[in-house]
């Protein structure tokens, strides 16, 4: 089976709320695809539709060309972690994995393997109700890995993880992708995906905003702007504006300049005898790039009066 997820024009509405509105994207093998959007953008709904849990009003979602519901041993094809707390609190971690393994005829020894893989081997006999959110996330990841599937989907896997856990999961997902698996990771915080995702599917209000590689996105957001720190901010702005640049204030003694290359800016400032302490290519963070992309589609914006 080809390790891909293909989402084609899915629509989903719950009552009067449109959750997903004509979304299409593709998740490729060997890459970590970040699935980003603000809360309520439709990420979880999309994932549920891919897993055959919710049925779309229109469109289709297939895994390796097949509908999820047609898979006979789905845990071998797709691993998913939707909600880490969706476990019975009275069941031991090991037994939780045991019933999942039984349902797809997965041998028992695999349970020990995945528990070791996620670092839960020591607490396998404890009841899941006593687990921290981080431990639950690890248990959920263990469940997703049970069938050693080529396609993996994780919904907000870093929620509740401590920095060490986040560091672990980054490396872990990268290594899974390195095996040639297709990995879809959702997050509402673009920062979490930094240094992990290869591609990004950005959605807002159920619609696709961007489907791009991380590198392209960062380049586009940086937009050849130059960062400048100077004590004589207003004079510098006048000089640069006269030379045809667009200047934006970013701090008390800092501006970003677009429309002029860095060398030209240095020459202009030197000619005008204006001092500066720092100049360089502006590097947008993923966060910044994301804010720019989703500015129009933020649904729950706390700062804005509605």
């Amino acid at each position, binding site marked *: *089976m*080809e*390790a891909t997820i293909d989402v084609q024009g899915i629509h989903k509405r719950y009552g009067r709320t449109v959750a997903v509105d004509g979304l299409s994207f593709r998740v490729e*093998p*060997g890459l970590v695809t970040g699935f980003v959007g603000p809360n309520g953008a439709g990420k979880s709904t999309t994932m*549920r539709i891919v*897993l*055959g*849990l*919710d*049925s779309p009003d229109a469109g289709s979602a297939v895994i390796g060309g097949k509908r*999820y*519901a*047609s*898979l*006979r*041993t*789905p*845990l*071998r*094809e*797709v691993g*998913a972690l*939707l*909600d880490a*707390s*969706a*476990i*019975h*609190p*009275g*069941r*031991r971690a090991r*037994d*939780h994995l*045991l*019933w*999942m393994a*039984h*349902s*797809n*005829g*997965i*041998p028992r020894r*695999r349970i020990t393997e995945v528990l070791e893989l996620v670092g839960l081997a020591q607490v396998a006999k404890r*009841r899941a109700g006593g687990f921290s959110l981080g431990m639950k996330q690890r248990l959920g990841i263990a*469940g997703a890995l049970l*069938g*050693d*599937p*080529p396609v993996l989907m994780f919904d907000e896997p870093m929620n509740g993880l401590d920095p060490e856990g986040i560091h672990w999961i980054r490396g872990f997902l990268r290594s899974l992708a390195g*095996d*040639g*698996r297709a990995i879809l990771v959702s997050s509402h915080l673009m920062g979490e995906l930094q240094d992990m995702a290869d591609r990004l599917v950005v959605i807002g209000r159920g619609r696709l905003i961007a489907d791009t590689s991380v590198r392209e996105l960062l380049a586009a957001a940086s937009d050849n702007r130059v960062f400048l720190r100077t004590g004589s901010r207003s004079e510098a702005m006048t000089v640069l504006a006269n030379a045809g640049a667009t200047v934006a204030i970013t701090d008390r003694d800092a501006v970003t300049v677009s429309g002029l290359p860095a060398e030209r800016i240095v020459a202009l400032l030197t000619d005008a005898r204006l001092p500066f302490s720092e100049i360089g290519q502006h590097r947008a963070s993923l966060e910044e790039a994301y804010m720019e992309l989703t500015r129009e589609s933020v649904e729950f914006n706390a700062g804005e009066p509605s």
Partner: protein
Amino acid sequence: MTYQSTIQGVRGGFGQLLRAEWTKFWSVRSTVLCLLAAIGLSILLSMFLTFNSTDANEGPHYVDQFGFVYQPLAGDGSVVAHVQSQRDSHQWAKAGVIIKQSLQSGTPYAAVMVTPGHGVRFEATFNTQYTGTAAGGPRWLKLTRSGTSVTGFESGDGVTWTPVGTVTIAGLAPTAQVGLFVSSPPNYVVEKHFAGNDQHEVPTNGEATFDNVSVRPAVPTTLPAAPGPPVRWSFADILDTNRFPGGLAPGGFTETDGAFVVSGNGDIAGSESVSSLEAPTGDDIVKASLAGIQIGLIAFVALGVLYASSEYRTGLIRTTFTASPRRGRVLAAKAAVLGSVVLVAGLIASFGAFLAIQPKLHEKGYEPPAYPYLSLTNETVLRAVAGTALFLTLLALLSLGLGFVLRRSARAITLVLALVLVPQLAGDLIPSIEAAKWMVRLTPVAGLEIQQSRLRFDTAIGPWAGLAVLCGYAAVALLAALWMLRRRDA
């Protein structure tokens, strides 16, 4: 580039699904505790639930009241009569010939008789009974005495006689009273009031016409035929003031050209045999010994509901359907696992409750002869006790179905308990027997009728028909669950 799973040889069959659901069942401590609580509750509550004691065994264990047309018979001899007709006043009305120690109620007797509902019978001393021809209708009857031995015969033509039975009556007086008798037990009418019943007896009047009546001493006396008038027939109302303290309308007889029309009421019977002692409000002690199940079932209902609804509460249902996308099979596997577990637990609970409570029942006066000891080898008892486990199984499946349909534990448990408990409570309260019966017939509580061991005035439906009603409810709930599961987002 594409990765391939290293897990080989997996199959996604129904067997795997059963294994998965069974693992889910035993691996949660509260489920196992709930199951044990269900068994324990059923047994313990059966033991401690108080129900009325009975005084059915106090006083004489017989009834002896009838209309008697008699004359003395000295020594051995026989009495013959042809029952021309008998009024169908009661299925246990009796008409025939009798030999009796004296005119005192309760003294030893032997009689051969016809009944409208139970054919020809030969009965004696309140504890012996033989059955003859099943057919009713006109019949020749004969009793012969030889010492203390009495034999009853019947015949279709008065020529060829068939013995029905023989008894030995120790201490039968040398001169006993012989003749014709007629009895007819009262009918019972139960009136239902708010939270209670009243039972009335309505007397029935038995009547039969006899002809060809003769009494022949065995030894034609060596003395010359006694001169003087032949022995005359007399009539007596034999009254049983213990059983019928109020007395009943007296009987009587007329004789016209050798045809005797005799009337009377009451019954001649021991309490083991019978009919008129078996009041319709008598306790169903098989049902009573399983009373704890009616509380214990709450735990079984909770078990069934939670097996479905807890997956919704925790969100586990999504993991379940991710692992097994064919939802109908998940429902089937859950039903199979739950059904099997509850069947076994139900058998433990019902047999345990039944066996635990028997000594307690005996203490309360439920003893032979009015209440014979119950044995599990008795087909009715076995059906009631084992059937209770089937009732619990079907109830758990109904709960499972509603758990899936409603997805909320509290709602589903409340609904099932309302369906099972409300009809019982309301049935006790509403002052109409028919309405109370329909309450039972139309609700899942009909399934509890599998426990019935005797017909009572308030018996609503047969045992298996009752179970079938519950079966219908369970099937509808499971089909609704299936339809919802397929149609609804998980």
